[in-house]
């Protein structure tokens, strides 16, 4: 289980790099002329740790981990392996869902930390290479406006997103019916449902945290 998560690391890092790169470019375009350029690094930093890092990582994991949980449990369901577990007097939820839930919840914040770091790295590279901003100016305002609260709330979101991904994957997996076709549908439904949930939870948490 944990392996699935850490196998996602390359894609998470790739997405992270481009997220940072694009957001610094966009921010630069938007604030040009209104806001002093020394705030560029800070704005990008906040956008990444509060919003982009957690949400984009979660969407990636909804596709990789959530869908794979749904497919795996769905296959076990349609091939009667879940019934077989129960017939051996083993609680299938405890045996299959609980470890997947904790693994996903545990791994989400860690991946988000990686994603945040690489995104900021990407942003910095774009800033110094293409926007002509010095490293010193890029990072100048971050120490003054750095709030632990921002980073923490991003990671808290990550926990909730991880929980949602795992719960949706497990629930849809356990409810799968209809052979291989059913498993295919379960995979898609798991991704769509957890993606929607991630965005909804993001909104709800945003109203509560900020």
């Amino acid at each position, binding site marked *: 289980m944990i392996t699935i998560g850490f196998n996602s690391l390359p894609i998470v890092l790739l997405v992270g790099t481009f997220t940072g790169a694009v957001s610094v470019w966009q921010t630069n375009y938007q604030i040009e002329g209104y806001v002093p350029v020394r705030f560029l690094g800070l704005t990008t930093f906040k956008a990444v740790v509060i919003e982009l890092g957690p949400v984009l990582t979660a969407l990636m994991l909804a596709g990789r981990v959530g869908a794979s949980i749904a497919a795996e449990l769905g296959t*076990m369901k349609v*091939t*009667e*392996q879940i*019934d*077989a*577990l*129960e*017939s*051996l*007097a*083993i*609680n299938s939820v405890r*045996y299959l869902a609980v470890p997947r839930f904790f693994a996903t919840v545990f791994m989400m914040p860690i991946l988000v930390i990686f994603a945040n770091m690489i995104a900021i790295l990407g942003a910095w590279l774009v800033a110094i290479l293409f926007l002509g901003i010095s490293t010193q100016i890029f990072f100048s305002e971050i120490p003054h406006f750095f709030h632990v609260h921002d980073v923490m709330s991003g990671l808290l979101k990550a926990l909730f997103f991880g929980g949602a991904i795992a719960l949706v994957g497990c629930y849809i997996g356990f409810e799968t019916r209809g052979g291989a076709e059913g498993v295919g549908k379960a995979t898609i439904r798991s991704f769509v449902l957890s993606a929607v949930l991630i965005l909804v939870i993001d909104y709800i948490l945003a109203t509560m945290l900020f």
Partner: protein
Amino acid sequence: MIEIQEITKSFGDKPVLRGVDLKIDTGESIVIIGRSGCGKSVLLKHLIGLISPDSGRILIDDEDITSMRDSDLYRVRHKFGVLFQSSALFDSMTVRENVCLGLDEHTTKSGEEKMVIAKDKLAMVGLSDVEDLKPAELSGGMKKRVGLARAIAMDPQYVLYDEPTTGLDPIMADIINELIIRLNEQLDVTTIVVTHDMVSAYKVADRIVMLHRGVIMFDGTPAEIKNTDNKVVRQFIEGRAEGPIKPVPIGGISLRGDRSG
């Protein structure tokens, strides 16, 4: 002893069981026959509480499992071993891990003791030197036998078989039939087989019941079923398309025309 009392079960608005009454005595070998899709697997799954009935009761040794707490239900399930239609081996585990899973979860036996038990149960179903293989490396007949070894690993009182011979060649089917008979005698278990394979039914049954349109419509010995006048039962056991049982229409088109003649 198992008593199934008036159980009904619908999925959506489709009734599958419409009042099934059946008493199964300890030690007997009962075969439940019926057409594909008539609810045989559904009935079997009721016996271990995998499906709960809409109404009616199921008594396992005088305990009603339909109104039981989960923890009690899991306790009762220890009395059962189930061989599933598709064998349902855990495909991420080796044969040994499959056979030992119940022991791992419910006993404190040492690794060595469990190895011995696994070897022993596999030998009982006629397998050796397969412990380290994965299910994907086994043939259909071997999978069934591993599934059976797993089902009897915890020494159950009741062994349930869901279409144990379906999809096997006639020789392998007969090997499985012999196994069912032998385990019934050697392990002193109650055997409940669900099948539409009449060769198998005649061979392993002390008693045959037929499930049709959601009720038990025949109950008797193999000799009695062979001589019954019941037209529905006759059509089924003789395997004819013509008769009172109408083929299920598929996509609105009856297959009847294609199959008769």
